[in-house]
């Protein structure tokens, strides 16, 4: 049966390729495969770049980011800071949602509440204490408790939803990543963006069609986009090389050369702004997954330092990443922080790690569970396995729980109560600014403000938080950079996190397809042209 289907598919492919030469219309169907799937269409479920990119074709924020990641007007035509704590946004007129409803200030107010509600993974997008005031149908004021000059920096991925549509479909509450049953909003989408979703089968395929009522002028020439997740590295590459798909992300590192040597496809590489790191649960009094009972070994700085020193990022670079990674001392990419050159990552030192563990009272190590996604970052699974091996050699037994990202995120994120002891995560600051890292990842967890929303391990240092608050309002670039440097130094001295590296972008693209490769690794359909 399967063979028949495959054969039929192959025949259909052959036909479509054959007819492409004579009828260029059919060529405008773009097939895109990613290693991970698109689980929920609810734009507030999972703050993860691939998901944000998918949904960014359908939904739009008040701001957008252009090809060079500069902030440009989106659903807001313009904005001004009336006074330091009051921002005014002038909304674009004549914008319609895909279902024909008009976009107005009410939708912004509704989205501002929904994005901050329980279960949202985007609570830090909008300050908890910010008040949204409707001035008229196309003007919204945001009243802040404290000045925030970077308020709109990551509003390009705070997608505006239709109030009427959400109310009509019982979707006024965000769908948490840990939700057992999908909500209407997680299976359907209604945005203002250049594409709409024709059909969505989670884990199987999603079909995008251009939105004829879009307010902008389309730069793409696509009539249809078919997205399929292909988890297996070799299958994904084979699909690209055989012409079954036009774009794959990522190209497995071991296959880059092969794709580049092929006739019909090439690999676009570049530095990515994402930092891959390891986090440790420092908040619980007893770890969820460990044989140490009655205390939490990660509360002891020496244990965290030992973990840091046990892990050889250079070996990971040369062996797992085949040279295509930049070991990082910081929790942010060097492109995003001017003073990152002042930091160097100390070399791995397993002997010192062993000594530190012994000093901390674990001469024979201990056992700890580790959570790891297998289809999110470049070689995430093999990196975790390498970490398991490196820690084993200093006596720590790591029980690796490597799962696809849907299950991984459902387990470790806030809605499920941060159920992890030790984990691998990657982070690109949505603001492209250090403050986001210091606030979302390194800030003390606080429900009232959503600070530390993605601080899965609960690292906390009030000194760092105080600096972060000052960094937010500081306008002098030099002073601000010095403060950021100081804050990162606190994190390093605490061994709060173990930064590993920045991975490299690797998109496999058919030669007849032109894409815009943004350094935040968002594959955005509305800039893609296919000949």
């Amino acid at each position: 049966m399967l063979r028949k289907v495959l054969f039929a598919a192959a025949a259909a492919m052959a036909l479509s390729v054959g007819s492409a030469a004579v009828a260029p219309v059919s060529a405008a169907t773009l097939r895109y495969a990613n290693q991970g799937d698109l689980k929920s269409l609810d734009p507030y479920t999972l703050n993860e770049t691939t998901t944000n990119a998918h949904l960014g074709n359908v939904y739009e924020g008040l701001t957008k980011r252009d090809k060079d990641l500069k902030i440009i007007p989106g659903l807001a035509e313009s904005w001004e800071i009336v006074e330091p704590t009051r921002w005014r946004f002038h909304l674009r007129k004549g914008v319609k949602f895909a279902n024909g409803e008009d976009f107005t200030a009410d939708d912004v107010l509704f989205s501002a509440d929904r994005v901050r509600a329980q279960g949202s993974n985007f609570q830090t997008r909008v300050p908890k204490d910010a008040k949204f005031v409707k001035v008229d149908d196309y003007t919204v004021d945001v009243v802040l408790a404290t000045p925030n000059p970077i308020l709109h920096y990551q509003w390009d991925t705070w997608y505006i939803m239709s109030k009427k549509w959400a109310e009509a479909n019982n979707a006024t509450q965000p769908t948490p990543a840990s939700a057992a049953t999908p909500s209407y909003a997680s299976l359907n989408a209604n945005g203002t963006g250049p594409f709409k979703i024709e059909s969505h089968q989670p884990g199987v395929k999603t079909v995008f069609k251009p939105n004829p009522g879009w307010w902008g002028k389309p730069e793409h020439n696509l009539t249809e986009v078919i997205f399929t997740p292909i988890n297996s590295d070799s299958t994904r590459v084979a699909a690209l090389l055989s012409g079954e798909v036009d774009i794959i992300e990522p190209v497995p590192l071991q296959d880059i050369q092969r794709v580049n040597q092929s006739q019909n496809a090439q690999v676009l590489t570049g530095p990515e702004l994402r930092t891959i790191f390891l986090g440790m649960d420092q908040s619980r009094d007893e770890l969820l997954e460990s044989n140490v009972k009655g205390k939490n070994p990660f509360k002891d700085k020496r244990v965290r330092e030992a973990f840091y020193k046990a892990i050889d990022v250079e070996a990971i670079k040369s062996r797992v990443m085949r040279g295509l990674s930049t070991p990082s001392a910081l929790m942010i990419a060097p492109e995003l922080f001017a003073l990152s050159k002042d930091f160097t990552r100390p070399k791995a030192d397993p002997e010192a790690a062993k000594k530190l563990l012994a000093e901390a009272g674990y001469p024979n190590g201990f056992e700890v569970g580790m959570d790891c996604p297998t289809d999110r970052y470049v070689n995430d699974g093999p990196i975790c396995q390498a970490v398991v091996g490196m820690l084993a050699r200093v006596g720590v037994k790591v029980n690796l729980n490597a799962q696809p990202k849907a299950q991984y995120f459902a387990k470790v994120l806030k809605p499920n109560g941060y159920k992890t002891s030790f984990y691998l995560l990657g982070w690109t600051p949505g603001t492209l600014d250090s403050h986001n890292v210091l606030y979302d990842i390194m800030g003390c967890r606080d429900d009232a403000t959503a600070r530390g929303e993605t601080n899965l391990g609960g690292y906390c240092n009030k000194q760092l938080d105080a600096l972060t608050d000052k960094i937010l309002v500081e306008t002098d670039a030099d002073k601000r950079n010095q403060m950021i440097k100081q804050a990162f130094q606190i994190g390093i001295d605490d061994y709060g996190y173990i930064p590993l590296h920045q991975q490299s972008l690797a998109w496999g693209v058919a030669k007849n397809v032109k894409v815009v490769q943004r350094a935040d690794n968002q594959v955005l359909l509305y800039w893609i042209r296919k000949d």
Partner: protein
Amino acid sequence: MADVTLTTPPDTPSRWTRFRDSDLLASFLSSKLTMVSALVTVVMILGAVFATWIAPTNPFDPASVDLMNSLFPPRWIEGGDPRFLLGTDNQGRDIWSAILYGMQVSLIIGIVGVIIAATLGIGLGLLAGYLGGRVDALIMRVADIQLTFPAILIALVIDGVVHAFFKGAPREQTAFGVLVVSIGLSFWVQYARTIRGSTMVEKNKDYVHAARLMGVPAPLIMLRHVLPNVIGPVLVILTINLALAIITEATLSFLGVGLPPTQPSLGTLIRIGNDFLFSGEWWIVAFPGVTLAVFVLAVNLLGDWLRDALNPKLR
């Protein structure tokens, strides 16, 4: 000494003599193919059993694996390292050791899975055949329904359900049990059908009637009288199913729902290697793949021979 000669009359051959003179051995010795496959099977099983002593390293022990040794080709190819006969995988594990340990895991899962399937199938088959009526109808309709689904699909469903029950439990701890249960529940039908058929024939024979008249309880009749007379064909199914179970395990592991990469079975090794199929590191997938193919082929040939040898119609 005298007692022994008394209790063992000289004209009753010992078990060994009976086996030596049997058709089974004669048929075995007359088929070279069977002898070769038996030899291969035995060697591979021994290799798996004594993996701990034969294998130069232990791939289960992360502490013995060095990432810097990763992706070495086999020893005889340029760039190979003399320490690693068949090369290393992307984590620096010795492929030769991994195959030995992987065989061990695959075999254990296969054998335990088949035992579960056989126990379940024999039990249900006996019940259905002996009791007949509604019990028979119920059991056999369930079997029919299950037969409409491929075994691998059933195993996938069971795997999914069990994992939903143990939500959050690390795969390392649940994988073995889940696999064994999935395989056991997927393969019981064949045993049940075979046993039911022969039981229905046997239960009308005189010795069963006699036992019933003597008042022997039904469970005892089933186990003591019927079972020994219907068990023959099951031996054949057992052998062939072992090969199938190992393939199923490998398939599940290949699909990523089986054993995790930290406890590699042959299927897991093939899955890991599959990612390197295009990039020139062929040895990661080739050697475990060949091992699996050879083992399954050998066991299948043995099973075929056993089926023919035990079939009186073919003699």
